[in-house]
């Protein structure tokens, strides 16, 4: 059974059809890339999957359940966690505190227990802290632990976004252009990181413009152009696909 399955997803903004009958699936522990020229509808697809936009029609099945029209926070609680295209961090809290905020959907303590500071609350808090430290180690930001998030370099901020998302222990991680604003060595790092994430059993769906990165780590690639899927396949097949080349280079149709 497919982990995530998009079924004929369509969204219209007035007369503009931003996505038309988009269908594809992401299997468990797969890395799938969604690529396409600017304005192809990649981020729109992300926004629909994570509940930030309601589609005009179509379904998003996750583990056999339709998650379309659930609010974002409920989708996150189901283990579908995203990052954003534009750097999106909790800027005036420390790196560590930001990651702790990412633990929200994996913690349960309620108001009364918190006020009474019960054993359960203390244990949960301990566990969250350990987890946050582990994740900071994992993405390589442990040495920046107490730094204010806004003081990180743009590359580090992108890593922090991934760390915050990982703190929610996603089953499916959606990365929107994770390598934007990174230098070549940082891109290298993020590639290894994504592979490590997958080897920890997390499925990854990513949008990315950097073809080196996309071709290097994806199991499968889905290509969008003007809101329609024009190709789907393994990296090598996509590289040789004529329609994809035309879409990118804009050759005579």
């Amino acid at each position, binding site marked *: 059974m497919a982990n995530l399955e998009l079924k004929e997803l369509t969204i219209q903004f007035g007369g503009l059809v931003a996505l038309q009958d988009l269908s594809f699936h992401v299997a468990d522990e797969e890395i799938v890339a969604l690529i396409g020229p600017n304005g192809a509808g990649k981020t729109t697809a992300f926004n629909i999957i994570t509940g930030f936009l309601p589609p005009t029609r179509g379904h998003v099945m996750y583990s056999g359940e339709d998650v379309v029209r659930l609010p974002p926070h*409920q989708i996150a609680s189901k283990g579908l966690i995203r990052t954003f295209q534009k750097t999106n961090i909790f800027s005036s809290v420390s790196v560590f505190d930001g990651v702790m905020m990412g633990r*929200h959907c994996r913690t349960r303590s309620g108001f009364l227990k918190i006020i009474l500071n019960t054993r359960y609350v203390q244990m949960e808090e301990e566990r969250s802290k350990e987890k946050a430290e582990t994740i900071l180690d994992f993405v390589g930001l442990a040495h920046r632990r107490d730094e204010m998030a806004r003081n990180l370099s743009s590359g580090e901020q992108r890593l922090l976004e991934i760390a915050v998302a990982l703190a929610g222990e996603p089953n499916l991680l959606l990365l929107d252009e994770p390598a934007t604003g990174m230098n070549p060595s940082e891109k290298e790092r993020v590639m290894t990181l994504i592979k490590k994430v997958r080897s920890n059993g997390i499925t990854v769906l990513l949008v990315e413009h950097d073809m080196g990165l996309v071709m290097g780590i994806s199991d499968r690639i889905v290509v969008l152009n003007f809101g329609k899927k024009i190709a789907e396949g393994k990296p090598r097949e996509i590289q040789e696909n004529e329609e994809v080349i035309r879409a990118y280079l804009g050759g005579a149709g």
Partner: protein
Amino acid sequence: MDCLKQLKLVHWIGILLALTAPLFVQSGYLMHILIDTGFFVILVTGLNIVIGYTGALSLGQQAFLGIGGYTSALLMKNYHLSYLPCLVAAALLAGIGGLLIGAVCLRLRSHYFVIVTLAFALIMELVCINWVDLTGGPMGMPGIPSPTLYLPGLTNFTFQTKTHYYYLVLVMVFIGLYVAYRLIHSRIGRALIAIRENEELAKSMGVNAFGYSLFAFVISSMYAGIAGSFQAHYLNLVTPDMFSFYSMISMLLMIAIGGKGTISGPILGAIIISMLPEFLRMAETYRLPIFGFLLVVVTLYIPDGIVHKVRPISNVLENWKMRLWRTLSLKS
């Protein structure tokens, strides 16, 4: 009791001063100022949860203060309940008010939210003035009985002197601060800060932004309700003035000057705003202009709040404490 370990030397000094204040403050007027300060500490600690942590500027807090005051006053005057049930009812009714208003207002963004909360408080003031049968109208309701602490078989104590009231408000302040501390240093507090920092990201991390904002709003209304109840019985009087915008301005000043989004900031703000005018008394007629000038200076040069300027002093004290500990442990 791990939260006691978190307390620094400055906090202990503060607690000690607060506990012993009636010993060296003789004047009844100064005691009144201290009690008033405690009252404001409760109010702004609650309001700070919304303004400082969740990041929503509510200008309607005085409405919940009034609801709390009138609820408590009416219950005790008409039904002769003892103080504790009145206090609980005041908190609950203010909380319910917060729930209804919050459920409407929090759907609005930024300045619309500010305006609607303010409008709500103004409406409450008008209702209070005009519903003469219930509230006594513009003159208010005098003769609210003093609070009694009635525990069957244990005690039946009536609060009468200023010192009694001082310790009553102090207990409330300690409880209020403890609850706020616990809340802020928990997953709920982090969710609130996440909403303030970046609502979109908070949602994508599983935070029900609307739900948590509403929760913060309700909790903060309950703080106001409790403060209102205290004030009603302390002054033995409730008037529509409780709903006036002036107390809201004082609260905002306290939070802004002390340092929003910190627990100790608003306490500091409350102490400064309620006490400074008294210390400036020697300047006689220039008292208020000087006060106003100081406010402007502080807002211009310490926009984050005074609490951040006090931290270095606190750290120096911490160092002394550590050194003292070390020498003591070496000797033994």
